[in-house]
């Protein structure tokens, strides 16, 4: 079963990569512009630190480390799960979902696998550079288990973002356009790019327990930065798993109430 889906995904991926390589100019524009947009946040923090020494007791590279972790998580999510955005206006509205439903594979799998978003690579490049540079400047050296842990954190972070997107994408079954709701929820990520300690308590609470984006940035980062929230860091993979269980239930509920537009 799992083996079948893995081989299938690799087949999908091959086709997607072919498309990606076919449109080289689009690929270059997409990757560089995504990279540049995400870089703006780093640029902002950099200019601030040209003027003052520290923000709320945080140094420049501590902040960029938090920023870089979320950038990586967001990059993986964007690369693999971007098609969730299109559920409403492309698959439900145009009736493409019907094709998925008559095939003997999970419709969710087909939705996710049938498209990858090369622009995510821009985020992965930027995030990789920022995280490496920040670790080096903070003089944090990682041994092998810690490197593995960092990878687990990043994958969990991506899974958290993807699960939240999946939950809200299901509104597309009813409204045929989930994009606005999803991008509104996504914009909560903006908070998580910076240490959540600078916000009032209720925002920290929301980002921890309601829409837990802080588990894709601040909490895993604190495992290495030691600002007093290390005990939360290890919850990261658990939160990711719980969110996926919830998201899959919501998806099944949405799908069972789906009626084709018939177009």
């Amino acid at each position, binding site marked *: 079963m799992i083996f079948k889906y893995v081989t299938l995904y690799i087949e999908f991926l091959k086709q997607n990569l072919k498309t990606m390589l076919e449109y080289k100019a689009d690929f270059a*524009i*997409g990757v560089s*512009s995504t990279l*540049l*947009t995400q870089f*703006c946040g780093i*640029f902002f923090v950099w*200019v*601030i630190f040209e003027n003052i020494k520290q923000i709320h007791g945080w140094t420049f590279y501590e902040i960029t480390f938090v920023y870089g972790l979320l950038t990586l998580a967001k990059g993986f999510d964007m690369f693999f799960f971007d098609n969730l955005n299109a559920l409403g206006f492309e698959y439900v509205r145009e009736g493409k979902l019907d094709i998925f439903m008559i095939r003997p594979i999970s419709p969710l799998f087909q939705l996710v696998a049938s498209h990858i978003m090369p622009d995510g690579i821009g985020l992965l490049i930027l995030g990789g550079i920022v995280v490496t540079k920040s670790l080096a400047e903070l003089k944090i050296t990682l041994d092998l288990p810690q490197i593995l842990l960092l990878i687990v954190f990043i994958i969990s972070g991506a899974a958290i973002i993807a699960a939240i997107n999946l939950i809200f994408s299901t509104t597309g079954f009813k409204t045929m356009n989930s994009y606005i709701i999803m991008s509104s929820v996504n*914009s909560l990520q903006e908070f998580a790019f910076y240490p959540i300690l600078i916000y009032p308590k209720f925002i920290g609470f929301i980002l921890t327990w309601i829409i837990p984006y802080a588990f894709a940035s601040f909490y895993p980062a604190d495992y290495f930065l030691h600002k007093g929230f290390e005990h939360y860091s290890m919850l990261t993979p658990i939160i990711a798993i719980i969110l996926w269980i919830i998201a899959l239930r919501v998806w099944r509920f949405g799908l069972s109430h789906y009626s084709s537009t018939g177009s």
Partner: protein
Amino acid sequence: MLGKILEIIKINIKVNLAYAINAWGAFFVTLLQIFVFYYIWMAIYKFDSVINGISKDQIITYIILSRIIYTQVTSGFIPRIGRKIHTGEITMDLLKPMDFQLFMLFGRIGDFVSFFAMTAFPILIICLFTLGMQAPLNFATSIYFLLSLFMAIILSFFVEFWIGLLTFYTNYSWGLQTFQEALVSMFSGVLIPLSFFPGWLRTITNLLPFQQMSYSPVSIYLGIVKGSQVYEVLGFQLLWIVILFVLSRLFYSFAIKKITVQGG
């Protein structure tokens, strides 16, 4: 002519009303961003009440105004031009007895009017009561601000139009839109007042048109520029409009010859 123009503006307002959900999305996202940057700036201003000649109260108003302007000048106009080119819809526009660029410009003004009513105005009200906003210094300042804001919108139209025409060469207008957003974020002063920039970076921004989209109107509003400097700023905006108009015109007449509509 004026009747025609008003009609185009009216149609665009109607379209925006029909898709009110977009306005709500923009409303929510912009408001959220204002709050993110509000808290970050409050952390920055924790130990100082004035940094680089800008006070804590000024920075709050600065964030609110510049974030709203940012949402407006990155509202997805480039993919709209792109779609016209890809679907071949542009052929219908080219047949119309009005210049294509002017036609799009008036449409853009219609967008601006509906944006103000449906997105900017509610945000301003909420911010006024939650974060607090400074009123303009005096009546003359508010007039100069509105004039400068209007020029900022016209100017950003020409930038968008210019970048939008690149879709004659690539099919990926969303990528171009993202690219424009990055340039605006960095050089328009949306993220940080330009007075925070180190000298060499300030020189670069002075050579680019982006600061005219946001920093100019907002700094007039806040009185960061005053007296005869205001005329200087307005003059520069006008100059950039002329430059970008001529450039986009040249590029337009060059690119339009390239047009090959794919069946349709």
